[in-house]
């Protein structure tokens, strides 16, 4: 889901940087207002977790690979704004140091994975676990469903962004300038593989860690201490 340099045209890249600017500033403002010094290590662990879980490429035999983002878990533990910052840190370092995701596409990749993903995941989890006791199974299931849906929303968005490129950028002879695959290919490809395989990875990872924390650190799951 890390869109590389060259797949998105300049206007698309600029558009997503422009959208992300107010999101990043709002995230900074909200985290600043609510950040408790004792939560900083957890935020660092969140960024580290998101970074490393994205290195676990899961194969579709004979096909493509994909991975979880871990962002829904971070959002459940620290709130969606803090998760946005943690995942942005991971994505920027992946792009700069490891060439995983383009520099020009940082705005778009952050919109999909550091904004859309933690926010949808967080609110789905909140809705499904509404008034559920901290130790209940409903929370584990809610976390899994939130992870599954949120990763697919992020994948669908990136498929959409890939897919509109041939509509936006073409040479006079009709060749694509950037991503050559239109919506009819990009959207089903991105959504299909995530609905079938990678969404479940995010679901299982999120649910298992919540299950573990219920036993060993239920205080992290209590409401009202979100960043």
């Amino acid at each position, binding site marked *: 889901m890390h869109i590389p340099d060259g797949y998105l045209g300049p206007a698309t890249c600029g558009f997503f940087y422009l959208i992300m600017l107010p999101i990043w500033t709002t995230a900074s403002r909200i985290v600043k207002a609510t950040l408790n010094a004792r939560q900083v290590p957890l935020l*660092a662990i969140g960024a580290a*977790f998101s970074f490393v879980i994205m290195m676990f*490429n899961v*194969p*579709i035999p004979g096909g493509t690979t994909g991975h979880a983002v871990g962002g829904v878990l971070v959002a459940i533990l620290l709130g969606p704004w803090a998760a946005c910052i943690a995942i942005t840190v*991971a994505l920027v370092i992946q792009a700069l140091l490891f060439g995983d995701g383009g520099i020009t596409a940082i705005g778009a990749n952050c919109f999909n994975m550091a904004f859309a993903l933690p926010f949808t995941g967080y609110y789905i989890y909140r809705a499904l676990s509404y008034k559920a006791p901290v130790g209940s199974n409903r929370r584990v299931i809610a976390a899994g469903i939130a992870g599954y849906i949120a990763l697919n929303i992020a994948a669908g968005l990136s498929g959409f962004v890939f897919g509109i490129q041939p509509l936006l950028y073409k040479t006079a002879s009709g060749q694509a300038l950037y991503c*050559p695959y239109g919506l009819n290919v990009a959207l089903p490809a991105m959504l299909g593989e995530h609905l079938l395989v990678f969404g479940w990875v995010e679901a299982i990872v999120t649910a298992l860690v919540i299950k573990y924390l219920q036993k060993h650190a239920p205080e992290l799951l209590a409401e009202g201490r979100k960043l």
Partner: protein
Amino acid sequence: MKIISKLWIFIGALIVLSPLGLFLPEHFKAGSAWGEWGVDEMQQLVGYIPKGLEKLSSFWSAPLPDYAFKGWEEKPFVSLSFAYIFSAAIGILICVAAVFIIARLLTKKDK
């Protein structure tokens, strides 16, 4: 043991296990992620390299491309695993440092 220490150990375990993310795709003959092909693969897939893509794709030269050392593409799996673990450790170190610096900047101003 405090939960934060346990979580750090968990992250450490993930770093050591990270080569699974190399081994499994290789073992199951899975290629690149969708939409993350290099220019050569693009040539094979669609028969040409989109002009803008060709220009922009070399826009940035990352110091540890694809979580490996430059020029290590043909190295044996053990070496690549080592580079992968090294990359995970370095990346996480920088992630953690970045979060602490951001937190410092955000909390400092009003005091």
